[in-house]
């Protein structure tokens, strides 16, 4: 299966947009990144940028499938840690973004390896809606669906983890 990671990251970053660690915030480069139905092979984190709406086909949820050798913090890293252990965006300053209509599948990653579906330290006017996380349920699994270690007032609606 083709590795789609680079193409997806290019779709998000193209257009001189506001990158974590390089830009604190911006309202002038909004983007909708749309995922048609299908299977997407992901080998490292999809790096979310500021003011980005990641939207899948609501009638046939696209599947983001992490490869066995996946590296990164989150199939979708909503706020990438920078050198020095600092979040790319201030977690109380990440506004106006959404993720909806996706399946995130971590099951190819060995159960003993730490793996995260979405890393989402974020703030007001953001939302996650209609997202399904598949993870290993083997004994001792280190998989986690959603990781929110700081931020302010995110809304989550209709997410399932299995």
């Amino acid at each position: 299966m083709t590795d789609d990671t680079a193409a997806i990251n290019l779709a998000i970053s193209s257009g001189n947009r506001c990158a974590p660690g390089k830009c604190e915030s911006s309202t002038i480069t909004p983007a909708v990144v749309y995922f048609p139905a299908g299977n997407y092979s992901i080998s490292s984190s999809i790096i979310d940028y500021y003011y980005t709406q990641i939207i899948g086909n609501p009638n046939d949820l696209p599947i983001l499938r992490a490869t066995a050798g996946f590296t990164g913090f989150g199939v979708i890293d909503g706020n990438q840690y920078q050198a020095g252990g600092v979040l790319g965006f201030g977690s109380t300053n990440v506004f106006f973004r959404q993720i909806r209509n996706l399946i995130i599948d971590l099951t190819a990653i060995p159960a003993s390896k730490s793996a995260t579906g979405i890393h989402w330290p974020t703030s007001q006017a953001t939302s996650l809606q209609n997202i399904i996380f598949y993870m290993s349920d083997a004994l001792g699994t280190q998989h986690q669906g959603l990781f929110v270690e700081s931020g302010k007032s995110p809304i989550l609606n209709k997410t399932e983890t299995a």
Partner: protein
Amino acid sequence: MRNLSFYNAVTAINQLWSWGWTYQSITIQNCSVGLDLTSGGHDAQAIGSVTIVDSYFKDTPLAFNTSHDASSSPAAGGSLILENIKVENVPIIVKRPGGVTALQGSTGVLTVPAWGQGHSYAPNGPKDFQGPINPPTRPASLLSGNAYYQRSKPQYADLAVSQVISARSKGARGDGIADDTAILQQLLLSAVKTKSLVFFDAGTYKVTNTLYVPPGSRIVGESYSVILSSGNHFEDLTAPKPVVKVGHAGEKGIVEWSDMIVSTQGPQAGAILIEWNLASTGAPSGMWDVHTRIGGFAGSELQVAQCPTTPKTHITPAAVNKLCIGAYMSMYVSRSAANLYLENVWLWSADHDLDDPTSTQITVYSGRGLLIDGSAGKIWL
């Protein structure tokens, strides 16, 4: 957070921290632990409070693992409120420090009407409590079954493209410069006649007069399309006018509106950004992910350049920079409004400039935030 389901996890929810956190309609099935609320431990609780309502736990040995007791610190940290929690084969619902069972569960089915731990307030100071509490009476009009009503942001997944009308296709420029008032008003009035979905293509739509949204309207933005008020129609603090007016007073019908922002440009001391007059019957009208944003962005003319902070200046009424009065009120829900569901609505008078490279603070004045005058029916916040 609502409408979440967890199956076969070691820990469904590991609550690392919170100030206040609300869960609604959560399902946890076949997990080892439902909610782990022990973060920080007995002497350094990282959780302020968690409230969970209308939720269901099944085949899970422990629903809530907590670190709070009468001697834990900070004193009100680890507060927990359960309301209408149903369990099935959950031997322990709440565990407290020392492995003690604070709330026994069942191998069968059991419903907890209400239970809590934390501080209860009395005239002579807070008292630490842990145990059953009286649930608030739930007005029948707010319920669906015995749970609080929910309505999610519509995605219009079943509409044909032909049922969607793009604002740009009708001649609105959305460039923040052209006056789009007339074209947008015409579009809104005609779209309801064909029951079409109005799509505001990404952009900033400048209006110089009130935009009336008729009953029956369905409106959606693209990456938070902005309606931006401008000009002297909205400048009189003594004669406020709505920028977006949903229904006339007394009108009935349903409006759905999502993924947009209403903002103001420059001095707009008379601007009521959103005015809601509509009364709905049956399913409520909804505003999902519709926000007001006053100042602090490119095009607002209420940025660092125009409205810097002045820490050395004592602000008296005379010293207020009138060019930086950005709004009269964010949102007004009027007396005739009824049956409105607001979810993820952020009414913000900006404290800093989002388009400044170092997030420099600004001083922008907004008269008022949200006023709900409506008593004719349900308003969900």
